[in-house]
């Protein structure tokens, strides 16, 4: 299925359909993650890959046009050879790989036992993924938030959002060809029904990340898709009235700073950077508060970045 989808995407000339196919691709990948029991990852892939990034692509198509220009097809031997070589190396490696899912695999034997056995006592959350992500490897996660923030700054630097006066009435819908969306009763009614639960679900995912799959990344994306859906149906102007772009532009930095502030607070209390033990009197409480706050920081940054990028794309396409 995956391979077939990819081939279809490459052969396609209508960009719109190609984008929809990439969304489909992400959905399959996400179900594969699901089968592999990586629920958190599946969650993210579904929200980011199938959801928000598809919308970004659509917004980009609104700017560049819907059909790709026919390119000259030269027979390119070298790229093909490189791809085949890479594939061959990958195949070569598979012969010596530990058996899939084997409990004896080194990946399960070395660091994982401590995560599995001790994390409840050391960190607290029943969801071990959250413990690893937010505490044991919290520094990496700070870096990931940095990546998201950098993407946002890059888009702003290049597209220059916030340069137009937001007072100008804009009627067109950001995604070309779907101007009639607002007129469609079915779409409007359904989205009216859906948007509020989506936002509430986002909050649930945000605060429930300790116990079940979820956390700041997923919640941020889900929250953003709720707002983006609203903007798609009702137009960008009401959405920007709801969330003023000027204020929204500050939020990604706020989230990142919130995350880092927890770490710096730990340092001021005499512990290492991002050591939440020092955040409260009791180490376990400290871990708990620390993780809650950094997850909030992640959520704020991710949601704000997604909405910001969407706004700046759609301002372009108008």
């Amino acid at each position: 299925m995956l391979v077939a989808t990819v081939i279809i995407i490459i052969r396609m000339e209508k960009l719109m359909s190609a984008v929809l196919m990439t969304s489909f691709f992400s959905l399959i990948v996400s179900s594969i993650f699901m089968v592999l029991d990586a629920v958190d990852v599946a969650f993210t892939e579904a929200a980011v890959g199938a959801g928000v990034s598809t919308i970004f692509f659509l917004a980009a198509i609104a700017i560049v046009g819907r059909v790709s220009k026919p390119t000259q097809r030269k027979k390119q031997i070298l790229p093909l050879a490189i791809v085949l070589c890479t594939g061959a190396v990958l195949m070569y490696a598979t012969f010596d790989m530990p058996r899939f899912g084997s409990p004896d695999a080194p990946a399960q034997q070395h660091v994982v036992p401590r995560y599995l056995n001790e994390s409840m006592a050391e960190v607290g959350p029943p969801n071990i993924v959250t413990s690893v992500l937010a505490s044991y490897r919290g520094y990496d996660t700070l870096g990931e938030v940095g990546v998201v923030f950098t993407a946002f700054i890059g888009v702003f630097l290049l597209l220059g959002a916030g340069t137009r006066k937001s007072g100008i009435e804009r009627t067109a819908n950001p995604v070309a060809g779907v101007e009639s969306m607002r007129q469609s009763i079915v779409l409007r009614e359904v989205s009216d029904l859906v948007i509020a639960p989506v936002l509430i679900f986002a909050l649930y995912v945000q605060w429930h990340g300790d116990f079940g799959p979820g956390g700041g990344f997923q919640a941020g994306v889900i929250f953003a898709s709720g707002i983006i859906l609203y903007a798609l149906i009702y137009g960008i102007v009401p959405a920007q009235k709801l969330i003023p772009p000027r204020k929204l532009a500050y939020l990604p930095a706020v989230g990142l700073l919130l995350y880092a502030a927890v770490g710096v607070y730990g340092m001021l209390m005499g512990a290492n950077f991002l050591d939440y033990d020092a955040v409260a009197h009791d180490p376990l409480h400290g871990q708990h508060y620390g993780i809650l706050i950094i997850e909030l920081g992640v959520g704020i940054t991710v949601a704000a970045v997604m909405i910001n990028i969407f706004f700046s794309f759609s301002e372009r396409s108008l």
Partner: protein
Amino acid sequence: MIYQLPAIVLLLTLLAAPICSMIRNGDIAWKLAVIAAWLSVAASMALMHQVWGGNEISYHMGGWPPPWGIEVRIDELSALVLILVTLFGSLVITVLRESLRTAMRSHRHSLYYTTFLLCMASLIGITITGDAFNVFVFLEISSLSTYALIARGRDRRALTAAFRYLIMGTIGATFILIAIGFMYMVTGTLNMADLAVRLPEHADNRVVQASFAFFIVGIALKIAIFPLHYWLPNAYTYAPKATTAFLAATATKVSLYVMIRFIFDVYGVEFSFKQMHIDALLLPLSVAGIFIASLIAVFQSDVKRLLAWSSVAQLGYMSLGIAMVNVAGLTATVTHMFNHAMIKAGLFLCLAAMIYRLNSSHIKDLAGIGRSMPLTTGAFAVLGAGLVGIPLTAGFVSKWYLINAALENGWVILAVMLIISSLMAVAYIGKIIDVAYFKPAPAQHKDVKEVATSILIPCWIFALLTIYFGIDTRLTAGVAGRVAETLLGVGL
């Protein structure tokens, strides 16, 4: 305070970046960025002071011991690269305000400083980390911010250059990620020191071998080792003026640092050279890179592009040092990494000052600039001498070690070839100097004046440092020698 330094050196720039983005006033944002950058220089110096003589610092992020948590590990090599990134980055950011004034509208300046700080922070993060996956995380930040910085160039072609770099960089990063995944699959750890302990017993495992291959190709793309340098000339040519100086000094050098770290420390000398024979691959590619890129540089008429091609050639010297597999060679690599970063950043900065006045980097427009901008051109000439490798400049020191390394291996022909390649550098630098001093200025550039002092000072700091490190080599070759001995396991 001292104990927290490994975190502080990163946090200064990493935290200044989001704060900068919230300040609308470009001038205040610039001041904040400059203060943060120079403080991080101080922190790097302090760290170097601590590890001087071969000590190591290990700092546990989140208080979790490795391999469960992420470790920050600083030795002399990382401290040297830290100084490289922070010092040269700070010198560039100091002139950035002057350079941006004409280049873009003022409300975007804060965002530009933010991106610049993010790039600096991520390079610091890569340098200090002791965790393989963490390298990848910061590599992503540095790549993204670099693409944005390049794409801001005034020329429309900057966008294509940035996009091309984006594609190549993403392939490189993906390869590195595959390599790290493979290593984790076999060893179950991501900590670099732990990997170094656990990898040798799996040396015959094909997964490890494949991971080595993926890693080398991925990082070579990032370093722009010939023939994977495809993205570099355009990226350097079309990036904004002063930014080129920063990128040329830091981005490729930090990638080279990562390569040294992994080849010598993580995979180990035994595996990399005895089993995988990486030297047999690097040696011919480096030599070919040096000659082909130098030759192309000689025939360039755009000075920015000329210097970019020269960078490809100089990177060849650095990878050549690795391929020698002896202490002198590795010393040359590490020394040249520092020296070339300094020299090339200085050259690009002087060139930026000239472009600032001339609005062109074509060699014809530089005619007579030696008389109209004597101080800038003077600094350029000193740095040019450093690039060629004239005695009493920093460039001489690294080439000296490289030629020694070749002779040590009994490769006399290679030593001769290195001298010939230096003559090629004389050709392309001499071409510029000749035009600048001995050709009459064209009519439209008759009234060109010297640039502001705030730009001249950093230019001359680079030039003077080039001379200083040509005489006092304790920080460069001294550290590099000790590092080389440790990495190669000699003298332990």
